[in-house]
């Protein structure tokens, strides 16, 4: 064989159709188009606009990073146990967030992509396809890790020296580790629960993993030292007394972050092993999981929503009941919407801990609950308004559009109030004025988010719930800004100050702005 022929044969292994490189290129193209969709919201690609937004975003993130880590730039390897605890604690917060994302992406591998049938019916190696897809998850998790870490690393390197760039290696290692762990977790879920329940279980596990660490830290902080701040807890004697010495193995990633190259090498090698071992061991089974999910049958008789299905009911009640039944019958959707309520656990603990205590300690509840209500209502309103699976039926029914809309808004607000009622009752028995402020905050914030969802409605299947934030980024931002402004107003009002009017005006302006730029109906 000539040298040219040998080169051609080698090239073919990587570039021929079905080869590793060919499949990787295919995945890369799909990932790039997903990213582009995320950046443009499905609209036209305007390079200049994207670059401007990117620069503004990068500047904003660097400013935030400066505020958060700027003062730690001169930290060195002799920070001691207190410093290592603080660094490791902060690192773990991000690590669990990455793990949550990776778990969701790995599970989606088997349920989400419509092209799996094509691959399954083709002679291409399914094992190869899944290995490449797992690697692409590792890449996207790395991107996410870098989005979080890079501004902080840049700020630290600028003010403290280039040794901080070892943080890049830590970010990559964290992404690889979380992908490997997520793959192993998804496989265990499949093997123990089967394909029918894994998607939901993984969804719940992902939400718990993502929030458990911060919630756990806050819970311990509230119960032990009476504060919500994790940093105060990390520096407390309670924690420091239980931590290993400064040269302990637990601090290897922290030492690597502070510029220790040997520790960085250990961390990267360990991460590579954690990713590679499950990938090699499990890649042969991944295709089987995908086939199993495609064969899932939900059938069988189920209990009806009522023993008396046919009864005289107003169309308003009927539409409301339909919204609640559809939500509660879809555990995946319910978990998507309700899991953010996990973040209310610290608020509940705070309420319990300071029950009967001074009014001051409860002030923190007003903004937390107001903000959570706005976000929850946004999700529920999207499902009710945009995620209507039978829009033609509703549109051709003898129910006026206003009646229909009022019923849906009521369905959302009643659900939100039902969820927050226990908190309101708890606060009411302590202080009725505080309960009134919190209830008003919850209702106004929820109603504002619902209005935004009505103005920016865009018909979609309920299963595309996750895409709601990319289909209208204006609606997403308006919803977030209005929730934050109402939360701020509730906090100031709870502090018995009339200055609550200022953030309330901001919230109204956000709503007015959203109303003015809402898409106009075309038919």
């Amino acid at each position: 064989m000539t040298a040219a022929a040998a080169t051609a044969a080698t090239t073919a292994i990587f570039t021929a159709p079905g080869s590793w490189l060919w499949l990787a290129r295919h995945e890369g193209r799909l990932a790039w188009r997903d990213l582009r969709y995320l950046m443009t919201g499905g609209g036209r690609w305007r390079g200049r606009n994207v670059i401007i937004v990117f620069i503004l975003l990068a500047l904003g993130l660097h400013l935030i990073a400066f505020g958060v880590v700027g003062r730690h730039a001169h930290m060195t390897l002799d920070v001691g146990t207190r410093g290592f605890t603080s660094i490791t604690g902060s690192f773990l917060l991000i690590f669990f967030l990455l793990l949550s994302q990776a778990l969701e992406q790995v599970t989606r591998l088997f349920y989400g992509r419509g092209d799996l049938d094509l691959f399954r019916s083709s002679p291409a190696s399914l094992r190869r396809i899944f290995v490449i897809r797992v690697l692409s998850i590792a890449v996207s998790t790395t991107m996410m890790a870098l989005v979080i870490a890079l501004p902080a690393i840049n700020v630290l390197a600028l003010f403290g020296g280039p040794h901080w760039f070892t943080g890049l290696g830590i970010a990559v290692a964290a992404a690889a580790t979380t992908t490997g762990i997520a793959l192993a977790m998804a496989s265990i879920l499949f093997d123990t629960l089967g394909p029918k329940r894994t998607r939901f279980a993984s969804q719940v596990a992902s939400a718990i993993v993502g929030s458990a660490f911060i919630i756990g830290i806050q819970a311990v902080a509230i119960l032990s030292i009476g504060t919500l701040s994790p940093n105060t807890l990390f520096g407390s004697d309670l924690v420091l007394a239980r931590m290993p010495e400064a040269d302990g193995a637990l601090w290897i990633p922290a030492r690597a972050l502070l510029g220790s190259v040997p520790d960085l090498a250990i961390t990267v090698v360990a991460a590579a092993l954690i990713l590679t071992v499950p990938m090699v061991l499990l890649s042969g089974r991944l295709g089987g999981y995908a086939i199993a999910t495609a064969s899932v049958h939900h059938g069988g008789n189920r209990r009806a929503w009522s023993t008396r299905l046919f009864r005289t009911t107003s169309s308003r009640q009927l539409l409301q009941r339909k919204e609640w039944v559809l939500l509660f019958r879809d555990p995946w959707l319910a978990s998507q919407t309700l899991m953010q309520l996990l973040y209310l656990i610290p608020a509940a603990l705070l309420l319990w801990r300071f029950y009967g205590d001074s009014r001051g300690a409860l002030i923190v509840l007003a903004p937390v609950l107001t903000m959570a209500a706005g976000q929850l209502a946004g999700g529920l309103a999207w499902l009710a308004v945009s995620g209507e699976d039978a829009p033609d039926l509703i549109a051709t029914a003898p129910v006026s559009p206003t009646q229909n809309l009022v019923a849906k808004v009521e369905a959302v607000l009643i659900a939100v109030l039902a969820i927050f009622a226990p908190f309101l009752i708890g606060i009411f028995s302590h202080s009725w004025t505080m309960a009134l402020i919190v209830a008003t905050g919850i209702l106004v914030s929820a109603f504002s988010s619902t209005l935004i969802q009505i103005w920016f409605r865009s018909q979609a299947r309920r299963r595309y719930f996750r895409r709601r934030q990319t289909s209208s980024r204006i609606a997403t931002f308006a919803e977030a800004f209005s929730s934050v402004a109402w939360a701020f107003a509730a906090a100031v009002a709870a502090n018995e100050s009339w200055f609550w009017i200022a953030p309330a005006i901001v919230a109204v302006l956000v709503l007015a702005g959203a109303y003015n730029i809402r898409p106009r109906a075309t038919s």
Partner: protein
Amino acid sequence: MERTVSAALRVTGLRKTFQRPAVDGLDLKVGQGEFYALLGPNGAGKTTTLRMVAGLMQPDAGQVSIFGVDALADPVAAKRITAWVSDEPMIYDKLSPTEYLAFVAGLWGMDPAVAEKKSAALLEWLELKPHAHERCEDFSKGMRQKVALAGALVHEPKLIILDEPLTGLDARAARLVKDALLARVRQGCTVILTTHILEVAERMAERIGVISRGKLIAEGTLEELRKQSGSSNTSLEDVFLTLVAEQEPAQ
């Protein structure tokens, strides 16, 4: 001889423009108890026309009257006597057929006892009874279409509008749907449907309208259409192709 039936549907000067006119000053009259098929090539404006009639889309101009009710001025009254079935059955995955029918019956304000009896009969007739309490999420396209059709029939509409109702159905399911529609017509109900399956229009429809570029270019019984196209003893397919070809711009 001119038919003297009263109009179930009267459409006058209906117009809708997107980038170009989709429906261009369309006039249409369908008699009570008539089975009417609306044919046309892709993009001719059939679905847009029917969606405007069903109240799913607002026309730019024109009038729609259903059994004498001005559907644009009083849409709720018009919807009370109308049913709509599209080619893509839009039903709730998480409801069972019985729950879906109870929901539809409730929306149309039916008497619960009557609705329950009718639902049971429809589910039996459409061979859905064994699946009456299963959730629709695992149903095939044909089963979903049958559930949607049951939803359209349960509230006893006087006018049923169907857009490509037989797309994707197997022979048995298609036969069931066709039988159901013919039975309704025999009971005095009016049916308007669009279809690309010309054999369905040929066998079932009393009158056929051919639409092209948003305009009604021919209308009548098959015999009348043959005359209009200047060809006798030919199939509806030949007639249709001749009529549509005449409307195509010269290449």
